[in-house]
């Protein structure tokens, strides 16, 4: 899912516009598999780990089963939003929370994009 995210996001100006001022790298972990998502003016580039000595501003980690529920076309109640997963204890936000909160709408839209596949 994450591998195809760059193409999905970059062709959707309705998502890109929310990240237009964002120039950051953040990590998304699907279980033990790590991805680095680098954003340049809202355009996304995705790399799959493992990584050696790479930096990121914040990380969002969840188990594959949680992401699978989150990425359903119509997710079940409580599985439809990152903060919903947070209340369930199904996701962990690490690192610089300021950056995550500053670009929260973009991050939410990016990570929900696979639902439209």
């Amino acid at each position, binding site marked *: 899912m994450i591998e195809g995210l760059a193409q999905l996001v970059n062709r959707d100006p309705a998502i890109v516009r929310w990240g237009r001022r964002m120039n950051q790298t953040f990590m998304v972990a699907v279980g033990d598999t790590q991805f680095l998502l680098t954003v340049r003016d809202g355009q996304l580039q995705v790399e799959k780990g493992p990584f050696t000595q790479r930096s990121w501003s914040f990380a969002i980690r969840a188990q594959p089963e949680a992401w699978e529920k989150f990425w359903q076309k119509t997710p079940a109640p409580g599985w439809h939003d990152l903060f*919903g997963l947070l209340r369930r204890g199904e996701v962990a936000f690490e690192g610089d929370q*300021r950056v995550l909160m500053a670009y929260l709408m973009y991050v939410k839209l990016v990570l929900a994009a696979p639902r439209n596949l």
Partner: protein
Amino acid sequence: MKLEPITGRYGAFQSQNRTFRLYYEEAGQGIPLLCLHTAGSDGRQYRAVLNDPAITKNYRVITFDMPWHGKSSPPAGWQNEDYRLTTGSYTGMIMDFIRALGLERPVVMGCSIGGRIVLDLALKHARELRALIGLQTGAYVERYYDAAWLDHPEVHGGRACGAVAYGLMSPLSPEKERWETVWHYMQGGPGVFTGDLYFYQVEGDIRSRIGEIDTSVCPLYLLTGEYDYSASPRDTEAAAARIKGAKMTVMKGLGHFPMSENPEAFLGYLRPLLEEIRKR
């Protein structure tokens, strides 16, 4: 331009020994129905209720923007203090508004923080009220994110508050209405949503008292959207289980802002309930 039947007015409102320039809207005639908006938003959330002829033919629907919210001003000196809503200031403000307008035994309907405060109104003012409707009611919600980030000089408050509100809605609600709900959140003043959440996530824990609510004096209806994870159906059930006579309904496919994220679906639940209250 096609005009709506809603009218808005400003007035000098006294509460908590302070004067606020308060804005409120109303439509319809009959039994007063006072609608309380959610944390960090304003009375526009109730647009569809105010515009519904099936309701306004028997109800005088009123909604006010709380001080600091919407078109209501903060008091003089706001620049020197942190805004913080508490159970006492919230209940006091609602009752002061009811007296200021001379509303006789109104029905009070509130959502989220408003859904919480109706429980306090049930405890303290049941005899002065005809019925209470809690939307997205929980007696308490453990803090699961840090609301301080919504009031931080290096985070755009409007964008962050909007993004938080966005997630609380149902993916099944119409896009147009969802994004309008987000817009209301994006227009909030700095620290206002966070100040409301002080009541919701910190001070306003009402769990130990709800068993004393007497619904034979004032009926209590609890309606909760199934997609809400802030005041989830489970949270409402936990409260309802301890209040004898409370009537709970889970609203299918709705989220935390039923009246504004999917007005048509919400009105489908609200209209029969208001008819039931009217015929009591």
